């Protein structure tokens, strides 16, 4: 009994709470990235390898707009719009010709796009990370830390964007179009829904969500041309663990994995804490290959 009591005393409760908050914050950003990815996959069987690059590019556009206008909120909106246009152009130029071909072609094409975007960012902005300030600088006290309100705001804003998008899907006219196209592409076309337009729009929305999360995340660690791969990898893990094409599962998995990584970071180096999410992935593949957060298939 003594040993058990000692073990519970040795758990740093304050650290655990701090890391819980951190985990939820990164989890919400990750959920925003992953829900764009899973949406694009769900509706057109496209695995968007360039999703992390859209995140990175969104952050860079945010940095540029911020230095030009000085307004963070302007940067957030403009960056989402610009990257959405870029996403639409990408979809029309490269993915539309591939409609009806093996989905593996789409992963190859978007991989090519990610190469181009990443090297463009390196060429244009250089290898040094850009740092931008937080738009809200006030703090509150969390144990011995002064915790920035901005991080809480990130989580709330991400949740608001995802929630707004969910409402749009559920009740908006175009949201219904999107869901109809997801369920049955041919039938939707027969009912007069412009399916190619829906595909382009969905890709643009996914790109905008990635860009928005990029801008929101930029003040935390700075913007760098290689950040895309980290995020797309994490988002891939999230959508596999959450069940691909499943929006709710992705959000749950994003928070779950971010929390685990945050807790692991108490005891090991953050670069090794990544391995925790790999382990979650392996266990998921072993026991629930269709995803942790989906009903058991009959």
């Amino acid at each position, binding site marked *: 009994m003594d040993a058990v009591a000692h073990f519970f005393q040795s758990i740093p409760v304050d650290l655990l709470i701090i890391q819980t908050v951190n985990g939820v914050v990164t989890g919400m950003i990750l959920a925003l990235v992953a829900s764009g990815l899973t949406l694009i*996959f769900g509706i057109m069987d496209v*695995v968007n390898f360039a999703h992390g690059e859209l995140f990175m590019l969104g952050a860079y556009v945010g940095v540029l707009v911020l230095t030009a206008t000085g307004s963070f909120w302007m940067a957030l909106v403009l960056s989402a719009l610009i990257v959405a246009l870029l996403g639409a152009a990408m979809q029309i130029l*490269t993915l539309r*010709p*591939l409609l009806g*071909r093996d*989905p*593996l*072609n789409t*992963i*190859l*094409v978007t*991989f*090519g*796009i990610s*190469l*181009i975007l*990443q*090297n*463009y960012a*390196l*060429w244009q902005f250089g290898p040094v990370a850009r740092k931008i300030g937080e738009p809200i600088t006030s703090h509150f006290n969390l144990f011995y830390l002064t915790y920035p309100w901005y991080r809480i705001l990130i989580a709330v804003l991400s949740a608001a964007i995802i929630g707004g998008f969910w409402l749009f899907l559920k009740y908006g006219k175009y949201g219904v179009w999107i869901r109809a196209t997801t369920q049955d592409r041919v039938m939707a076309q027969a009912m007069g829904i412009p399916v190619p337009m829906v595909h382009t729009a969905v890709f643009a929305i996914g790109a905008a969500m990635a860009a928005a999360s990029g801008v929101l995340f930029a003040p935390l660690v700075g913007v760098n041309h290689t950040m895309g*791969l980290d995020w797309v*990898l994490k988002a*891939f*893990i999230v959508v*596999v663990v959450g069940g*691909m094409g499943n929006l709710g599962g992705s959000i749950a998995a994003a928070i779950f994995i971010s929390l685990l990584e945050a807790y692991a970071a108490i005891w090991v*180096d953050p*670069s*090794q804490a*990544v*391995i925790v999410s*790999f382990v979650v*992935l*392996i266990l998921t*593949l*072993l026991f629930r*290959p269709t995803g942790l957060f989906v009903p058991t298939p009959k």
Partner: protein
Amino acid sequence: MTSAPLSKSMPLKTKLSHTAVFWIGFCVVMALLIVAPLVLPEYWRRFLTEILIWGLLAMSSDILIGYTGMVSFGHSAFFGLGMYGAAAALLIVSPPNLWLAILFGLGGAAGAALFVAYFSTRLRDIYFAITTLIFSQIFYVIIFTWTEVTGGENGLIFSRPHFTIPFLYDTRFSTATLHWFVLSVVAGSYVLLRRIMQSPFGMVLQSIRENEARTRAIGYPVERYKIVAVMLSGLFAGLAGVLYAVQNQFAAAEFVFFTTSGDTVIFNVMGGIGTLVGPIVGAGFFQLLRELLSRIFGDQFPYLIPLGVIFIVMIIFLPQGLLGFARRWLNR
């Protein structure tokens, strides 16, 4: 003899001539590659050897992409484990022994391949591609952070082993003899893999590519075939890693990173999947274009932007790759 009907002798004749033409072509290419180091300057000699090594890596992943229909984004893990396996043998055993390096490298790659194969073959298509990518990142994180053993960011440096035939022959590698050694390994791998892909085993892999459900229904244990295919592919990728380590005398974590896997996929798509020789052509095409671009525009030029555009255009308009037109002929 003379009265043999024409219709019966015709198929025999065309079949013979196909085999003959194939091997004559093979010998001509081999002869050119054998002579190449004698006429090329030093820089291009090394360049050609490196293309052959990248070609072997790409060829190994063609077993999965082209023949089994599984796109692997994780070949850097096998390549890197081959590299670090060779490094281990060359650093631990003294004097460094070439054959031991190959043995260690193949062992390392086989271990990685078994691990990846066991988990990722449960999934198909896109899921397979994603999980191979994530698994290769696991190996990258381990190698990058385990500094005491792998050297971390700095990698490992070692000296090149001699070329030995035990008890008979022992000589230092020159760039030319190293080229011939690499060439013989790559050519041997090509002939072997071509034979394997024409065997009943290879036919089952191709039928998994064409229709997995039906292959399973006929009664083939599809999962077991896939595991063997991934392991076979991993072994040859590891062999490429060993050759690269021997040529450049270092092992570095950056080769385990995802970019190596990405390059491998690009070589395959550019050269033409499902041909085995296509990926080698793709590797050569890619490296030559890259060299050309950096000669014209300077070293700072982001050569991956135009190459990425070419890659995308080829997927849309030329999905069979450069050698795709000869695919049937090469596999007959």
